[in-house]
């Protein structure tokens, strides 16, 4: 066979820039003397910023989806939005990390190398349209995170979180693979569009083998997005990891899993929506309840945010689940991705606040954070905004996200949609209890005697930048929700390509 390969380098330029940055970070780490390793961080920051630029040109140039590598890889507006999200989140995580990594004995250049590798995996997932590419993307996104979650080598909690994350992560990957192997056996194809065509033509969409593969893939990705009953690793791993890594795990890793789930469900199984839809409805409802009820009892801020992010995953999943039952994928994907994007920035902000307050008070117990607003007024304002946004208070971004989800659930007219909307409304109230409790403690409670507040400046300037960017996006999303109409068009293009 004569191979005739011509590669459109412009279409994959932001991935290529990330690859070059990865190589550059590892080289700089090798060559620089121990004192000036700071430059590794600068290279990583610069590289992730530069990799954002091609996305803008691609956005302007590609009105329709561009198919690369014989259908395996697609560049469309939907994937560009998600890539932009991944790059921005990684950039903010770098800013969160700089001082954190430096403040420990753990300051090492590989940190940036691993985080950038994970970013590359996420970028590949957003564009992938065949099983092999998608699987490599998922693995590339999650394998570096196993190592990063165990970054604090001497800390037993970090070790324990890492081994739990690793074992369940690899198990989930093998479940996904078993599902893929069944699909390959059924259809003899790896590319999603071909698979769904053959499933439709041979009338296999609801055959037991196809549904078994769908459930195996669902279970596997369920681990990645930490929905109930696959959530048990998340609080432990989040608690053990360094805080910037936790922020990245709860935002970017989760988003990668959701993107993979959306691509698989709508590109391979669009015809069997009524089967996986009901499973997702149950998972989504359970996730909201168990996440929120567990978060209520937490006094450790990181575990609280871990359970809160589990509950938020239930909200992200809900419109997708209902779209399977009603068949209106466009609205479901639009609502899920809108929630995902707004959630990403408010959650990053929440982790920033927790990071600063733990450093200020030296305490891992939120009930000892009384009166911290006097020492950290700006952080207290951040805390109020981000936690109220997570709870869904207008005019913050979290309100618009919840609004879109509820609109999608109710407009479907399905009985399941209305049930999920009721469950969601109950959970929004439960969530408000623990989100508002933190603000109340910081602003109103008397200072605790068990802690000694550090006089050092803990809200360093890179952290301030993260705070203000997240703040700006959270407010913009709430006040100018029209911005998200682009996403609606992108979602319809995504489905029709």
């Amino acid at each position, binding site marked *: 066979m004569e191979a005739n390969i011509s590669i459109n380098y412009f279409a994959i330029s932001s991935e290529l820039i990330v690859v070059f940055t990865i190589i550059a970070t590892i080289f700089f780490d090798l060559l620089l003397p121990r004192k000036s390793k700071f430059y590794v961080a600068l290279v990583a920051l610069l590289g992730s910023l530069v990799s954002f630029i091609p996305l803008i040109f691609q956005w302007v140039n590609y009105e329709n989806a561009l198919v690369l590598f014989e259908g395996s890889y697609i560049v469309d507006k939907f994937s560009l939005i998600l890539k932009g999200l991944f790059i921005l989140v990684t950039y903010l995580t770098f800013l969160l990390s700089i001082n954190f990594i430096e403040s420990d004995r753990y300051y090492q250049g590989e940190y940036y190398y691993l985080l950038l590798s994970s970013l590359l995996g996420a970028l590949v997932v957003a564009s992938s349209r065949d*099983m*092999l590419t998608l*699987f*490599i993307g998922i*693995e590339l996104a999650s*394998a570096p995170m*196993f*190592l990063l979650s*165990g970054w604090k*080598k*001497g800390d*037993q*909690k970090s*070790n*324990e*979180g*890492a*081994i*739990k994350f*690793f*074992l369940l992560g*690899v*198990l989930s*990957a*093998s*479940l996904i*693979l*078993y599902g*893929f*192997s*069944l699909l*390959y*056996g059924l259809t*003899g*194809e*790896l590319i999603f569009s071909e698979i769904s065509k053959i499933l439709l033509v041979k009338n296999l969409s609801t055959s037991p083998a196809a549904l078994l593969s769908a459930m195996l893939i669902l279970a596997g990705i369920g681990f990645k997005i930490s929905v109930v009953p696959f959530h048990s690793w998340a*609080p*432990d791993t989040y*608690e*053990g990891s360094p805080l910037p890594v936790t922020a990245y795990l709860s935002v970017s890793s989760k988003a990668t899993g959701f993107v993979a789930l959306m691509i698989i469900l709508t590109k391979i199984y669009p015809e069997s929506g009524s089967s996986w839809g009901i499973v997702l409805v149950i998972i989504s409802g359970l996730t909201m309840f168990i996440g929120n009820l*567990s978060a209520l*009892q937490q006094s450790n801020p990181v575990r609280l945010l871990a359970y809160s992010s589990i509950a938020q995953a239930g909200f992200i999943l809900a419109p997708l689940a209902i779209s399977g039952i009603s068949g209106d994928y466009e609205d479901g994907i639009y609502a899920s991705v809108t929630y995902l994007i707004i959630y990403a920035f408010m959650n990053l902000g929440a982790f920033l606040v927790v990071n600063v307050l733990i450093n200020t008070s030296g305490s891992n117990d939120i009930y000892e954070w009384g009166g911290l607003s006097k020492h950290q007024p700006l952080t207290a304002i951040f805390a109020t905004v981000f936690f109220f946004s997570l709870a869904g208070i207008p005019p913050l971004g979290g309100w618009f996200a919840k609004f879109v989800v509820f609109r999608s659930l109710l407009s479907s007219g399905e009985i399941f949609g209305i049930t999920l909307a009721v469950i969601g409304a109950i959970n929004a109230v439960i969530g408000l209890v623990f989100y508002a409790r933190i603000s109340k403690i910081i602003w109103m409670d008397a200072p605790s005697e068990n802690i000694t507040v550090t006089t050092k400046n803990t809200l360093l300037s890179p952290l301030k930048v993260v705070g203000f960017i997240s703040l700006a996006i959270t407010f913009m999303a709430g006040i100018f929700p029209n911005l998200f109409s682009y996403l609606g068009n992108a979602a319809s293009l995504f489905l029709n390509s």
Partner: protein
Amino acid sequence: MSVQPFLIAAAGLFSIGIYGILVRRNVVMVLLSIELILNAVNINFVVFDAMLRDAMLQGQIFTIFIITIAAAEVGIGLAIVLMLFRNRKTANINEFDLMKW
């Protein structure tokens, strides 16, 4: 050629692997169980590739990728296990219980 025996063998390996993950207490044995599952997947891909007479050998190519990734993952896993063993002097999963709820 009947593919059923091969598929049943692969499903058996898959089940043994899941059983091992649930029951085995030693981390290294759990890692081995995960390898069993991945090899079940490999058998599936190769058998389906042969059954379908795929001209592009997609199943076999997928298998090679899985073998490579499995090797990388075991590398990561053993590094984490080694780190744990240094700090705890044990590789028993039941004793990793610092964090609950």
